[in-house]
């Protein structure tokens, strides 16, 4: 048999720049064929899965690409090749082998990725910090939730899209709930090796725990689902601090929020948007009654309202959040919907005609933002 030709084939010559590129990628600061160093415990799981997938992928790549290059180098047609090569139509044994081995590999990959998924996707019942992230075109707003699930304060109190940072303590589980009032966005922090879509009409949640060694770092986050012209600018930062620093920051934020309440206190007529056609100062008791509810900064300013039992009444609903849809959805004690007001985009006011309700206590919420809750007492 003739020996392999020494001439460098074209394919190999073309592959060289590629390899050079890879080497350059590893050598300098520009990104490499590997995800960034993980900074959360979930990301560590994902990264060790990536290690295995990458290893298997690399072995398959070099093996199969090697076979191709070998065949190309070895089996060129030579001038002496006048006779046909052996006409091999197949070989059942080898075909079974190259069906079974890949099957085993992908089953293995499926099982380990399922295991990793179960730990990456797990949400704890008692996270140390709960944050509602509201993504709207084209900014983020983070609402820190109290133990009762109601917002303590928002990082975008001014409502101008200038939201500051998502500040989180290291070493403890943090739970993020995702809300969108408009289109689909995605919460993506590359160093978390994680993203989750922010889908209007749907509450997604996930947990992450920042590694203690990554304290006092800031991680870049960005919207990853096309949401319109401002998509590229929809960035945010996650800042990891120690628990002590976090508590200090938290208390500071809460006292700030208390010092400048976002709207008029409970019970009084709504400010801001106002109620044209004459406000009704009373919040219950009188005949032909109407109830005031105001939404501002993704929260109800009025969380406890009263209405008469057994007779229809009206809700004067003021939505003071520009460009943000809200409504009032009253739930029966069993969780079913007793009344669902039309969703209106602020700033605006609207009147809901609520059918007669039997006496009792009814939770209400905003359909778009389930973190906005309150209680309606019917008596």
């Amino acid at each position, binding site marked *: 048999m003739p020996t392999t030709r020494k001439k460098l084939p074209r394919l190999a010559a073309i592959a060289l720049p590629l390899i050079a590129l890879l080497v350059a990628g590893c050598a300098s600061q520009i990104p490499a064929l590997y995800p960034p160093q993980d900074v959360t415990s979930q990301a560590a799981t994902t990264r060790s899965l990536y290690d295995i997938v990458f290893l298997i992928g690399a072995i398959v790549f070099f093996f199969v690409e090697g076979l191709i290059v070998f065949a190309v180098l070895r089996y060129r047609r030579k001038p002496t090749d006048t006779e046909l090569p052996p006409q091999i139509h197949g070989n059942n044994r080898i075909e079974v082998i190259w069906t079974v081995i890949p099957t085993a590999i992908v089953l293995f990959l499926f099982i380990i990725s399922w295991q990793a998924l179960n730990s990456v996707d797990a949400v704890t019942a008692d996270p140390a910090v709960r944050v509602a992230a509201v993504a709207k075109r084209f900014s983020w707003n983070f609402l820190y939730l109290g133990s009762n699930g109601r917002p303590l304060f928002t990082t975008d109190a001014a409502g101008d899209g200038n939201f500051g940072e998502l500040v989180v303590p290291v070493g403890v589980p943090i739970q993020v709930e995702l809300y969108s009032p408009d289109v689909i966005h995605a919460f993506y922090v590359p160093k978390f090796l994680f993203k989750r879509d922010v889908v209007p009409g749907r509450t997604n949640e996930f947990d992450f725990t920042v590694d203690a060694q990554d304290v006092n770092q800031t991680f870049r986050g960005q919207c990853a689902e096309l949401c319109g012209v401002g998509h590229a600018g929809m960035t945010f930062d996650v800042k990891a601090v120690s628990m002590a620093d976090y508590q200090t920051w938290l208390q500071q934020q809460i006292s700030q929020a208390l010092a400048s309440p976002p709207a008029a206190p409970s019970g009084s007529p709504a400010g801001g948007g106002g109620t044209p056609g004459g406000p009704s100062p009373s919040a219950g008791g009188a005949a032909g009654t109407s109830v005031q509810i105001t939404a501002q900064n993704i929260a109800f300013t009025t969380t406890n309202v009263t209405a008469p039992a057994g007779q229809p009444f009206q809700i004067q609903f003021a939505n003071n959040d520009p460009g943000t849809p809200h409504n009032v959805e009253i739930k029966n004690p069993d969780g*079913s*919907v007793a009344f*669902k007001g039309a969703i209106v985009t602020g700033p605006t006011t609207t009147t809901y005609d609520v*059918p007669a309700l039997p006496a009792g206590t009814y939770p209400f919420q905003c359909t778009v933002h389930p973190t906005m809750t309150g209680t309606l007492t019917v008596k």
Partner: protein
Amino acid sequence: MTSGTAIVVSHDDPHALEHGNRGISNPILGMILFICSEVMFFAGLFAAYFNVRANAPVWPPSVAEVGPIAEKFNLHAEPWFAATLTVVLVISSFTCQFGVWAIRRDDRKGLVRAIGVTLVLGIAFLIGQAYDYSQLGFGLGDGTFGTTFYTLTGFHGAHVLAGTIMLSVVLYRAMSGQFSARHHDAVEATSIYWHFVDVVWVALFSLLYVLPTH
């Protein structure tokens, strides 16, 4: 031109001359395959219906969710008109098939009669559906119920309309004597399409008027 035509003839169906089993003729096979794609078209619409239905806490949506219009959604209360339409369409499927059987016997008069009756029943269905729409009292924009109801029944109605047009063509050709026991692919294909439209309606009727609400 003549020589070209000669090639057409010899190539057109070389198998027919040599073999007895020709299977299903090309136009009918094509129609069946097209109907398979139509099944998937309605599969998309039905999937959307089941999806919004499964997501709704109450179906049809309650007064609490969409306001007083919800009271109009109770199609189960008055299914009789739609049931009559269903009967009309099912009968038309039978008359259509009688037409096919007639032309297979080379009964051209029978074909014209049966297709004529089918066409009248099809048009009656369309008029009935238009009348039903005018009486329902809710529109396409009235919540997911209105949207899915009108999209499903509307696209079915569009298919009935297409079917009546095909039936009209078949009727015209039948009256001109273009069909025979050997040569009536268009009748067979139209009939299959008409049966499909009928089956879709029966599924729709069951879905909208019979399937229990929640």
